[in-house]
């Protein structure tokens, strides 16, 4: 494939949104209240919309009649290159909202930089997505503060979610070889430069939420090279059910 690094780069970026979109979409009909249920599915819808733009572009690069649906539904677990953070389950609403918060802060910083890419299509997607993701970040940050600085129980749950998800944050700033090649070409975002600002923003949010920042410096990694936690396989079997059961079906 010509432009193989670009193809890999786009999939790496888009898989984060696809898997998170699927995860938060699981709240559809199961949210703790009607308003949060609708909010979560709206976030999911935005993410899927963004993913479609990325995958359509990737399919174009891949050629050979590949479609966005092939990329979304017909890959195996190891071929998904999302970070481990976004595949973590909705253990309870605290986990859902903390996972969202930890990703949204990153996502916004990432899109701000992607707007400076030399690739016109990626710039267009970034400029479109950034407006939506600003709302996501506001929503998740708001809830972290509300629950963190809420009752004894909500505070303890948010703290527990932060403590357990913290280990997945460092991977957001890892780079694959394709990522590095795209950064060198002026197309990709150098995520290592976002790290400082990321932790600063997250820590400020946690401070207002009266939540302690975990001190652990031991971080999990693997998603970006396709080595996932056990949660992804179960999610994919759900997500890919229709395409696997009725191959080539269309809506």
């Amino acid at each position, binding site marked *: 494939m010509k432009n193989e690094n670009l193809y890999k780069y786009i999939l790496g970026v888009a898989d984060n949104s696809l898997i998170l979109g699927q995860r938060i979409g699981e709240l559809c009909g199961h949210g703790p209240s009607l308003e949060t249920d609708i909010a979560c599915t709206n976030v999911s*819808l935005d993410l*899927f*919309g963004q993913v479609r733009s990325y995958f359509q572009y990737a399919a174009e690069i891949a050629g050979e009649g590949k479609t966005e649906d092939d990329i979304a539904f017909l890959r195996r677990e190891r071929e998904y290159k999302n970070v481990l953070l976004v595949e973590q389950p909705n253990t309870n609403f605290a986990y859902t909202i903390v996972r969202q918060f930890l990703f949204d802060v990153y996502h916004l910083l990432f899109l701000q930089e992607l707007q400076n890419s030399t690739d016109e299509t990626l710039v*267009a997607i970034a*400029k*479109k997505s950034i*407006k*939506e993701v600003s709302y996501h970040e*506001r929503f998740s940050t708001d809830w972290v503060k509300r629950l963190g600085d809420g009752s004894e129980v909500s505070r303890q749950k948010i703290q527990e979610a932060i403590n357990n998800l913290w280990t997945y944050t460092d991977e957001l700033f890892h780079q694959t070889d394709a990522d590095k090649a795209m950064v060198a070409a002026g197309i990709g975002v150098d995520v290592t430069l976002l790290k400082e600002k990321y932790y600063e923003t997250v820590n400020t949010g946690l401070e207002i939420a009266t939540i302690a920042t975990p001190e652990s410096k031991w971080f999990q990694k693997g998603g970006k090279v396709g080595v996932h936690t056990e949660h992804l396989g179960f999610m994919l079997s759900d997500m890919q059910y229709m395409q696997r059961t009725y191959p080539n079906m269309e809506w």
Partner: protein
Amino acid sequence: MMTPQIDKKLHPILAQVSDPEIPVLSILEMGVVRAAQIVNGIVEVVITPTYSGCPAMDVIGDDIKKTLKENGYDATIKLVLSPAWTTDWITEKGRKALLDYGIAPPLEAEADKDVLLGSKKLVGCPQCGSTNTKMVSQFGSTACKAFFQCEDCLEPFDYFKCLK
């Protein structure tokens, strides 16, 4: 590019196509149509989504084709992301139509932030006009709206979020 390039002959035809989720608003008033020109007898229509995941886009594309066909034109639809749609492209007439329909039209960016963070009360209730309103949820019935309630007449309503 901010002013859509729409062929005068096509204008009245496209004005008949409405947003499937907000039927009082035509797609022209919504600012979704960015260009419509007749090239070699075929109409080329360029549309842009309000939100990336807006499920109405496929329907809008089909409705445009159908309406143009009824008026004797074949059409192709092209979807573009750039420049990204903004609520500034909703026309004055469109804003009025939203309000009459019971949806509070978008405020300016700064004001929008204030109301969504709950620091100021600026959104007017489409029913009674009072600005004594509160946000119930940042996300409403569709991706483009937040959910509000009037504290005077107690009616719940949608607020069209500012997108710039």
